[in-house]
């Protein structure tokens, strides 16, 4: 039975007894609280922006997780600026997703007058707040943001990053493009008289126009185009002709020849071709460099670990930076906090959620004296640990000391392979034609030599790759597959093996995996269980609660007694309800599988158990079928081999399944596949896959929500689009064909141009038409064909 009422704040279904306040329905207390805050501050316009703009807020109890922001040294790391009476801070807010978010976050001063102003950068999801520091602390600011559902994500990595200036390169490219575009427009206008033959009539202007063109081309060649010269020099030193070498030769020939013509007063020169060429090349570079500012592809454990943890100092717990933790320190973890280093539990019970490490979403129970690995998140009440290793030396984090995190292997791009031959051929043609003219008409020798170099400048060639991969990246982006950079597409084409992580990658991560084993529960029984588990804080209880949701019953809970780590006994409307482990209920654990089980008895009658079992994502077998002709598969699972049989039946024959893999083992497994000459695509979702993702040719991080944490990788793929992987690979392959086709197209242009140049017929007017024409037709051809192909293979 599904309740159709939607929460007024967050838009989720109101599953349990809905709350009504101010004539609106809310799914939970959190949403109601947000509504109260908003309405009491006159911010209800928020709701008129979009139908369901909000988020489900977290429990209020979690707010104290920000109290480390009172620590002076941490505060100094996080703050941008500290002035007299006010402070400025920039916080990363992962939850920003719509125009109402912008509105709410930029109206913080209405929620709390201590905020002077707040500005959000939507594309990078960063909020900059100025606030009065004597009326509000940084911690209070963070708590306020959290209470309205926009909790900032503050971690080690950010604190380091804020000191570096970001994206300086992007701005430089824009400025270079601006200059090139400006000069291109003006030079073209100034060249018209020459092309139209007007210069002959009003001769007094023509030399003025030509000198002006020369002056305008200087900043373009020496500033906007400077990268091509430096890059060409660099590759010449390494005796390797990349695509920038012929471009630099062409630009130089154009510039020298044109300058000579103007100064010697023999012709108008090719300034507009020169400037236009640089402009088009820069546009190509810009088109390809589309980046996802809000996504980070370089996150390591530091960006997941907290800045500080509660450490015992004398008799008190105080927040200290995690870097200062040493062996033997006693730390306190509260609900939702992450354990930053390997430690031993000294309280009786803890339930640790390793979902960011392994992808497993069912928390594991730990007992007193257990050794607990770093990276787990405590769920439930607060617990104490004794640190066993420093943060950087822990089981998980020492993965980052591996060599794989150095330089990645070099990948020779297709364009560089082509340009190696291209440069040689062009230089030979230029030389031969120069020799030929030396014997027939020596006055033409240098003109022809320069003309060949000019027209052979591989502008169109150099544009075909950026525009193809730029278009492919945009199609991928529309389908929630985000690439770190354009090179990933070419690397994707070179792979022949796909390695999957199991938990969280090919299995579902949410509570959908829950099922009840035993006689079917009646509606009334469901309602009884539902009422009982509502009082439990155990994370599994929440899922059971969702599962047993029914309408129309009104039971009240009379007593509730939870035995940590075992289960609970509740009296609901006079009936005793026992929920917990098999041992707690005194029944035999069902050994059908090793899935986590929660057993239930009502009024002393054993009813059965809830089983939390991994379910594989829908469509996985279809995906594997579609890919099996081109790829071999492997599965690297950190779990035991209980699922081996099921996996074997799903994966085609010849696939290798490995179990009990530690993070280091996964990395080694990838290395081993690579030494056999295979190139690997790795799909993983947790920190324990980070080494394997780094080592593989293309590491793809799978995540349910792209703005949340994902380990360092070459690409980030939203889990819901995993089944499109075969289409992505197909499009990458087709993209390569498009590049090759446009290479041929631009080489045809070059053949026409070169034959004219060799014959000594190349006029500036002809160059001015042919060069932009070839560039534009290549651009149109590549973008249109990539979009047609993506439609054909049914990508958005």
């Amino acid at each position, binding site marked *: 039975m599904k309740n159709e009422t939607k929460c007024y704040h967050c838009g989720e279904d109101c599953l349990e007894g809905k709350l009504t306040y101010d004539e609106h329905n809310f799914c939970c207390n959190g949403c109601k609280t947000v509504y109260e805050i908003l309405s009491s501050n006159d911010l209800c316009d928020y709701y008129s922006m979009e139908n369901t703009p909000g988020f489900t807020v977290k429990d209020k109890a979690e707010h104290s997780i920000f109290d480390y922001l009172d620590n002076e040294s941490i505060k100094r790391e996080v703050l941008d600026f500290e002035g007299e009476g006010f402070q400025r801070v920039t916080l990363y807010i992962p939850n920003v997703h719509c125009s109402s978010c912008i509105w709410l976050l930029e109206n913080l001063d209405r929620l709390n007058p201590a905020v002077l102003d707040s500005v959000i950068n939507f*594309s990078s999801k960063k909020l900059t707040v100025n606030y009065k520091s004597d009326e509000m602390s940084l911690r209070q600011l963070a708590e306020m943001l959290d209470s309205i559902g926009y909790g900032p994500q503050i971690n080690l990595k950010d604190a380091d990053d804020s000191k570096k200036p970001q994206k300086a390169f992007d701005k430089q490219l824009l400025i270079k493009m601006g200059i090139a575009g400006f000069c291109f427009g003006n030079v073209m206008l100034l060249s018209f008289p020459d092309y139209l033959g007007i210069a002959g009539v009003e001769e007094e202007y023509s030399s003025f126009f030509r000198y002006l063109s020369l002056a305008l081309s200087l900043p373009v060649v020496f500033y906007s185009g400077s990268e091509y010269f430096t890059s060409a020099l660099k590759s010449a030193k390494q005796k390797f002709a990349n695509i920038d070498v012929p471009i630099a030769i062409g630009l130089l020939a154009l510039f020298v020849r044109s300058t000579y013509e103007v100064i010697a007063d023999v012709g108008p020169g090719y300034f507009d071709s020169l400037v236009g060429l640089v402009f088009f090349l820069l546009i190509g570079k810009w088109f390809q460099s589309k980046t996802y500012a809000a996504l980070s592809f370089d996150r390591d454990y530091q960006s997941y670990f907290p800045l500080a943890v509660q450490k015992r100092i004398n008799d008190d717990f105080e927040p200290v930076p995690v870097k200062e933790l040493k062996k033997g320190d006693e730390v306190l973890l509260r609900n939702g906090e992450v354990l930053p280093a390997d430690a031993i539990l000294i309280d009786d019970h803890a339930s640790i959620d390793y979902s960011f490490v392994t992808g497993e979403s069912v928390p594991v129970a730990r007992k007193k004296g257990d050794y607990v690995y770093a990276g787990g998140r405590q769920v439930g009440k607060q617990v104490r640990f004794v640190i066993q290793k420093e943060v950087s030396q822990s089981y998980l984090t020492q993965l980052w000391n591996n060599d794989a995190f150095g330089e990645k292997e070099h990948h020779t791009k297709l364009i560089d392979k082509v340009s190696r031959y291209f440069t040689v051929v062009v230089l030979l043609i230029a030389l031969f034609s120069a020799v030929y003219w030396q014997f027939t008409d020596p006055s033409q020798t240098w003109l022809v030599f320069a003309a060949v170099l000019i027209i052979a400048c591989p502008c169109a060639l150099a544009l075909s790759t950026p525009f193809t991969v730029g278009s492919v990246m945009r199609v991928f982006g529309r389908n929630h597959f985000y690439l770190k950079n354009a090179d990933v597409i070419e690397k994707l084409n070179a792979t022949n093996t796909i390695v999957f992580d199991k938990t969280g990658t090919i299995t579902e991560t949410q509570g959908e995996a829950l099922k009840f084993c035993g006689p079917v529960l009646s509606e009334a029984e469901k309602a009884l269980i539902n009422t009982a588990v509502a009082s439990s804080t155990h994370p599994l209880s929440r899922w059971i609660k969702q599962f047993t949701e029914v309408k129309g019953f009104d039971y009240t809970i009379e007593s509730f007694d939870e035995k940590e780590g075992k289960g609970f006994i509740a009296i609901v409307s006079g009936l005793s309800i026992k929920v917990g482990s098999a041992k707690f209920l005194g029944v035999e654990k069902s050994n059908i599988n090793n899935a986590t089980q929660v057993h239930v008895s009502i009024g002393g009658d054993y009813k059965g158990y809830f089983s939390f079992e991994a379910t594989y994502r829908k469509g996985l077998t279809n995906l594997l079928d579609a890919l099996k002709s081109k790829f071999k598969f492997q599965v690297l699972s950190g779990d035991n081999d209980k699922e081996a049989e099921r996996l074997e039946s799903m994966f085609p024959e010849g696939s290798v399944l490995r179990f009990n893999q530690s993070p280091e083992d996964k990395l080694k497994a990838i290395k081993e596949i690579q030494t056999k000459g295979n190139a690997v695509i790795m799909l993983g979702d947790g920190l324990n896959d980070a080494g394997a993702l780094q080592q593989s040719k293309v590491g793809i991080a799978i995540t349910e929500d792209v703005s949340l944490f994902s380990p360092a990788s070459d690409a980030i793929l939203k889990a819901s689009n995993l089944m499109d992987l075969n289409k992505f690979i197909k499009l990458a392959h087709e993209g390569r064909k498009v590049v090759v086709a446009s290479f041929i197209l631009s080489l045809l242009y070059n053949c026409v141009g070169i034959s004219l140049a060799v014959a000594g017929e190349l006029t500036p007017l002809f160059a001015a038409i042919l060069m932009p024409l070839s560039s534009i037709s290549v651009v149109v051809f590549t973008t249109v064909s990539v979009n047609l192909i993506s439609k054909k293979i049914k990508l958005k």
Partner: protein
Amino acid sequence: MSVILVLILVSLVVAIAFLTAFFWAVKSGQFDDTYSPSVRMLFEDRVKKEKEAKND
């Protein structure tokens, strides 16, 4: 000097002024975030609050 030359020089100066404006726009970060300004301009001004202040 012919009037054409003057005109061309003047037009160049004007164009350079716009180019400088573009540099300023890039450097002051106006291209960093192209989405939120488009939404921000649609937000209601704070009329309500001021009205209330008047009523008080």
